[in-house]
């Protein structure tokens, strides 16, 4: 494996997601992106790894915190930024906003603003693949809060029952809004153990180590492709910024600065950069080059969004029915 993976591309995928999110954070206070926006800064490794293991025609669905998943699946960057700006060129024509991203061209079948809501959708997509005798898989992104919804459990049960190829990707970032796991889930009970109890193949993984993520995902997906049936992976991860919005929030008191700093040290991007530097697979120049390329693309996307028109007011009343 070591040999075959394109480490630069891996890194660049993460860097690109981070840079997009940083740019949103930077511009957000201008009050032009007028919708609840949940950034994934700190959580880039998981979707980046997955993007290396699945095909364009595989499916994915996600949550309120969906930018990274959309981008990793190959979603159109311009259309995403325009959507957050509420423009007619947005991927949902301005009707959805940051929490309702979609790009059916690359199998990204939507995000949801309701916790847990997209989980069965991902399972249904996998069911459609089985019915069509296709070997596509379906990736369901969910948070540690979403596993508290009964629908998670119902969906997993059905996926096992019907032997559907669903990869459940649980990004456990320890919080649901500002509520820590303590007040929501039993101590010492691991999320992965729920999945196992329900009968799924399941693993835990360090969500900050992209090569480990890649390894575990590759294993999970090859198992699924061979044997059918779902696979559940719990990733340990951490969001650096506030739950919703562009700022840091270590001052408000729901988590300690110490905790934040401990996790910050595990930052998936800077760690991977250091590692690649150390082993000589990348130079600082490479990083700068990547950053430049990415920044240009992002600049263009924001310009596109800013220059796009708002949809006509009358559009609000159209498209309720298909």
């Amino acid at each position: 494996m070591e040999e075959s993976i394109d480490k630069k591309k891996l890194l660049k995928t993460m860097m690109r997601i981070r840079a997009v999110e940083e740019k949103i954070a930077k511009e957000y206070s201008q009050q032009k992106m007028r919708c609840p926006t949940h950034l994934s800064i700190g959580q880039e490794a998981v979707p980046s790894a997955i993007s290396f293991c699945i095909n364009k025609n595989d499916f994915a669905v996600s949550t309120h915190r969906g930018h990274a998943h959309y981008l990793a699946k190959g979603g159109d960057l311009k259309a995403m930024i325009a959507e957050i700006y509420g423009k007619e060129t947005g991927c949902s024509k301005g009707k959805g906003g940051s929490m309702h991203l979609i790009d059916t061209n690359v199998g990204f079948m939507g995000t949801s603003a309701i916790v847990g809501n997209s989980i069965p959708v991902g399972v249904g997509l996998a069911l459609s693949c089985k019915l069509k005798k296709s070997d596509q898989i379906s990736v369901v992104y969910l948070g540690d809060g979403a596993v508290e919804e009964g629908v998670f459990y119902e969906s997993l049960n059905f996926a096992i029952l019907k032997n559907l190829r669903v990869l459940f990707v649980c990004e456990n970032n320890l919080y649901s809004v500002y509520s820590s796991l303590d007040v929501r889930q039993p101590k010492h009970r691991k999320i992965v153990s729920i999945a196992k109890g329900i009968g799924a193949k399941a693993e835990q993984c360090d969500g900050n180590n992209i090569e480990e993520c890649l390894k575990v995902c590759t294993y999970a997906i090859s198992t699924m492709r061979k044997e059918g049936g779902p696979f559940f992976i719990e990733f340990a991860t951490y969001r650096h910024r506030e739950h919703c919005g562009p700022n840091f929030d270590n001052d408000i008191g729901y988590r300690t600065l110490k905790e934040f700093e401990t996790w910050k040290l595990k930052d998936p991007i800077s760690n991977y950069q250091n590692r690649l530097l150390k082993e000589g697979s990348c130079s600082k120049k490479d990083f700068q080059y990547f950053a430049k390329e990415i920044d240009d693309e992002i600049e263009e996307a924001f310009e596109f969004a800013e220059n796009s028109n708002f949809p006509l007011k009358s559009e609000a009343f159209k498209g309720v029915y298909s």
Partner: protein
Amino acid sequence: MRLIKYSEAINEGICEAMNSDKSIICFGLGTTDPKAIFSTTVGLEEKFGSERVFDMPTSENAMTGIAIGASMNGIKAIMTHQRLDFFLLAMDQLVNNAAKAHYMFGGALSIPITIRLIIGRGWGQGPTHSQNLQAWFAHIPGLKVVMPSTPSDAKSLLISSIFDPNPVVFLEHRWLHNSLGDVKKGLIKKKIGECNVLKNGKDITIICMSYLTIEAIKASNYLEVKGISCEVIDLSSIKPIDWDSIFYSVKKTGRILACDTGFTTCSVAGEIIARVSIELFDKLKAKPLRLAMPDVPEPTSFGLTKGFYIGAGDIARKCLAIFDHKTDNESDILPEPVPHDIPGDWFKGPF
């Protein structure tokens, strides 16, 4: 004429649709069991295989989301619940997801799912096996809602629902399952959003739906004898609703009675009264009338349901009153059948 039962018409509708389109699947608790959801799904698994026709876990919410997800990739799902009441577990998927997906993703997706919900009344079904919540579904933009009252409509509207690119809530009344009607063979469709003017009349427009259509027709026959000429409109579709036909009729008759199998407050009948009062204020010759179920959970006891349901007699009395008809003995008018809590002799309970 080819008389078949409402339940058979449903079954035929599913068969014809599934025959003509391989992307249709059909599932729900009991779909493949020996009772086959009041015989409506009988034989489907044999005909179409267990990949396309299957039973399911008691997981109403997830199964709705699964139907939605499958529909995003070209599958058309028919899901059935033996009682509407069970489907309350799936309101998040229905309302936050199915109803809005097409709109909120800017048209990138359609959600062609059909949800068959059985509604009913009587025989001790009680508070949580008898709810007629069409008003809830009608309140939500993005949903279509149909309530066929005849076997022919049951089949043709079901086929139209299945092929409709939007989520359709298909409400079938348990008391209609055994009713007979002339039903065309083949893949017949009926436009969702068109009502049936079952009877032309000039004095009052009676609007009804689902099982109440049977009662409205009985009442109108009785009223005819009393010299009151009723126009009977069977809504058939609740959303979209056929405002044109309703307005046309009320313009003609100047009077309206809207009947509803659901609770009174914020009912579909209430919406009809509201719209008619707003749009046709000048055309109304008398105050509009409404006859919906009371704002009371349906009790279980045989004793308590006596006189509880809306029947032909209630409809007749309402109409007579608006024409200031004096009747000697009110309770003699189209008395409640005995027993009052079953649709007919064919019903043997408990389910």
